[in-house]
């Protein structure tokens, strides 16, 4: 008995931004921070807990280790990648409380956005893009980069997946999917340095029923679902949880609906934007579920997906909100100077409850709207 108690590894105490948690040995700083949750958690663009060997590349999760451990309380001289550094007992980590970290992270965000096309208005990932969130959180307005951005040709990876290399931040997640989920790996990184690019050798389709998962792991809009491309903005769709008996995968998915139409099928994501696990197994879904089953009748619908209230995706859930009243005319004694050009006013976009339309908005909707108001 006594031996057994001795064998059980003692939990390690780690302090992150003055919050102490106990974690089992072998836990990374990032996982410990995720246990705390909230702002303390460093952002991670390349690390994916379900993919072996991922992480350490993007450098957004850099943290400062102010004390290595109780046994050796010296600070680590360099910032460390929290996703690949294991905690030690008595380690003191600084994330949001460290100016060094904040500065380095802003630097990394600037580097990541340096050659990113910032084509969010036409990018299918907009609204659920990790780089977008990261940019809003840590980036600066404007760029100091005065040169042409690098560009690549678009490439098809099989008939259902499109690779848009311009947007890629080389997180390597999709290469790990190709490596660990599919049997014959023909997908990897070609070239090096700032001309490194994800490719299939050479423009060869990935012939595997699980290849679609690389769309889900892509943190940006580099890999997109061709059955969903330009169909709709993600914040106009309603995500619902659904399942079916699938002989190949877990069959647990999120359906992205507009009206009765299923526009897209993805695996379910957890709060860190990663695929959910069921009984300790990651819930990867097969291409049949993802690309073929596009009718609500194919699925047993469980109910609406819980979406973070701050996410733009939950926009569609708050209908009939009152716009704040313009007060400029009142305070300027009836004068109405054109101070700002209000894009919503001109486009009249906001006059229509887009989320209540059964399908995509067309010019007909706007015509009706403007004739109605006149």
């Amino acid at each position, binding site marked *: 008995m006594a031996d057994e108690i001795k064998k059980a590894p003692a939990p390690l105490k780690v302090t992150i931004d003055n919050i102490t948690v106990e974690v089992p040995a072998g836990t990374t700083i990032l996982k410990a921070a995720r246990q705390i949750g909230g702002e303390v958690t460093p952002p991670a663009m390349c690390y994916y807990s379900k993919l072996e060997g991922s992480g350490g590349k*993007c450098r957004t999760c850099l943290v400062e280790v102010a004390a290595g451990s109780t046994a050796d309380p010296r600070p680590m001289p360099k910032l460390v990648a929290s996703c690949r550094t294991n905690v030690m007992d008595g380690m003191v980590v600084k994330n949001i409380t460290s100016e060094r970290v904040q*500065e380095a992270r802003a630097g990394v965000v600037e580097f990541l956005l340096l050659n990113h096309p910032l084509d969010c208005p036409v990018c299918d990932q907009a609204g659920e893009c990790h780089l977008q969130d990261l940019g809003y959180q840590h980036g600066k307005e404007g760029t100091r980069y005065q040169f042409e951005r690098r560009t690549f040709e678009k490439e098809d990876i099989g008939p259902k997946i499109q690779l848009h290399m311009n947007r890629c931040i*080389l997180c390597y997640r999709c290469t790990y999917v190709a490596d660990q989920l599919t049997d014959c790996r023909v997908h990897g*990184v070609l070239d090096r340095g700032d001309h490194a690019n994800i490719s299939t050798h050479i423009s060869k389709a990935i012939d595997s029923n699980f290849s679609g998962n690389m769309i889900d792991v892509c943190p940006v809009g580099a890999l997109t679902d061709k059955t969903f491309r330009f169909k709709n903005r993600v914040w106009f769709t309603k995500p619902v949880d659904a399942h079916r008996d699938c002989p190949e995968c877990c069959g647990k998915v999120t359906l992205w609906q507009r009206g009765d139409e299923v526009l897209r099928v993805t695996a379910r994501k957890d709060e860190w934007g990663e695929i959910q696990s069921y009984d300790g197994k990651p819930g990867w879904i097969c291409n049949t579920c993802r690309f073929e089953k596009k009718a609500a009748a194919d699925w047993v619908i469980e109910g609406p997906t819980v979406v973070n209230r701050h996410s733009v995706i939950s926009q569609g859930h708050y209908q009939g909100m009152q716009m704040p009243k313009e007060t400029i005319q009142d305070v300027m004694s009836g004068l109405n100077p054109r101070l700002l050009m209000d894009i919503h006013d001109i486009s009249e976009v906001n006059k229509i409850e887009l989320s209540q339309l059964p399908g995509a908005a067309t010019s007909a909707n706007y015509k009706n709207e403007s004739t109605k108001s006149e």
Partner: protein
Amino acid sequence: MGRKLLLEKAHIENIRSYEVYRKEGGYRSVEKALKTLTPDQVTDEVKKSGLRGRGGAGFPTGMKWSFLTKPEGVPRYLVVNADESEPGTFKDRYLMEFIPHLLIEGMVTSSYALGSNRSYIYIRGEYAWIAHILEQAIEEAHQHGWLGKNILGSGFDCNIYVQRGAGAYICGEETALLESLEGKRGNPRIKPPFPAVKGLWGCPTAVNNVETIAALVPIINEGGEEYAKIGMGKSTGTKLISACGNINKPGVYEIDMTISVEEFIYSDEYCGGIPQGKKLKACIPGGSSVPILPANLLLKTAKGEARMMNYESLADGGFATGSMMGSGGFIVMDDTQCVVKHTYTLARFYRHESCGQCSPCREGTGWMEKILWNLETGKGRSGDIDLLWDIQRKIEGNTICPLGDAAAWPVAAAIRHFRDEFEWHVTHPEEAQKRNYGLAHYADPLSVSVA
């Protein structure tokens, strides 16, 4: 004249062949080590010698070897890093080309000390002809019983294999080298775990520079303590310096680390001064990655002492007023050289050689190159110099491997010491196209004497 340990016999006719090498006393160290010493005693001799890694970082070799974990039933590997790609460094090439058996001899002894039955030489692909020389030397060593099974009846087996790289600077980084050796894309691994714990094929591995391993031969022959008597302070033994640039006698020199930088540049025994009576402007003392120094800081430290050619003295003053011994690539620039152009050339190299794995290095190196190109071609803007400083600061220390640091340091040092030259390029864009900035005050207030 300083003592020579490595290149002493390099110019004997046919020293490349086994017979001549053996006649000149070759493979004595293997006999001594395998017959009279245990592996741990060999490591102790290396520790006593105070030998520091000759590849660039200068980490004590004996200590590095003692970190090697020795779990039961798991093979250990010795990998010799001959991927010498640092601009300005060509000492290993010289050593391997002229006296290949010295490396093989050092490798047998080192493999014995580390318990490596399969040792590798990872050589850069551009050294194609040297790989043949090494393979021939290995073949000869096999025929004479210095490699293979049960060497000298000691029960120790060892084989050496030569692996050619494919022309990537990054594969000189030890973990990228191991990845490449395993047949994968040469991306550096994230440390920890260090190669001493999990290296080649997940086994404990020691990765050492060619010169470090070759230095094992004199260390074992003469004993670690004798070896430690050569040199100064913690810079023991001899070091190969590959000198190039604006000097009369470029080439590889073996120094015993007791001479001053001034003597090294101006003495006829070494570089032989600067041609055409020009003046010294700047120098990169340890290969392209280390900070550049202007003439006045190169010859004298900030304290006013003469700067010596050894690890401590070259690093004296930190990066503010010092540099590093690095890999021994000694690049001298005279007063007709343009520091901006030179920094651009280095930035271009690092952009081209970045592996593209981690974002600061992948994006930052390209950005720096473009800004430096603008500065050099007269399109620079006043904010560019501060921008460059900010970019290098955000790359340094935030990358997976030291290539990011190596790309950042030359830019940082050039701006630190030659800021007025950069500013002159911005303020006089047209003039900067026609002439160089010249020596200015970089050589003040030193009087240059010819030894």
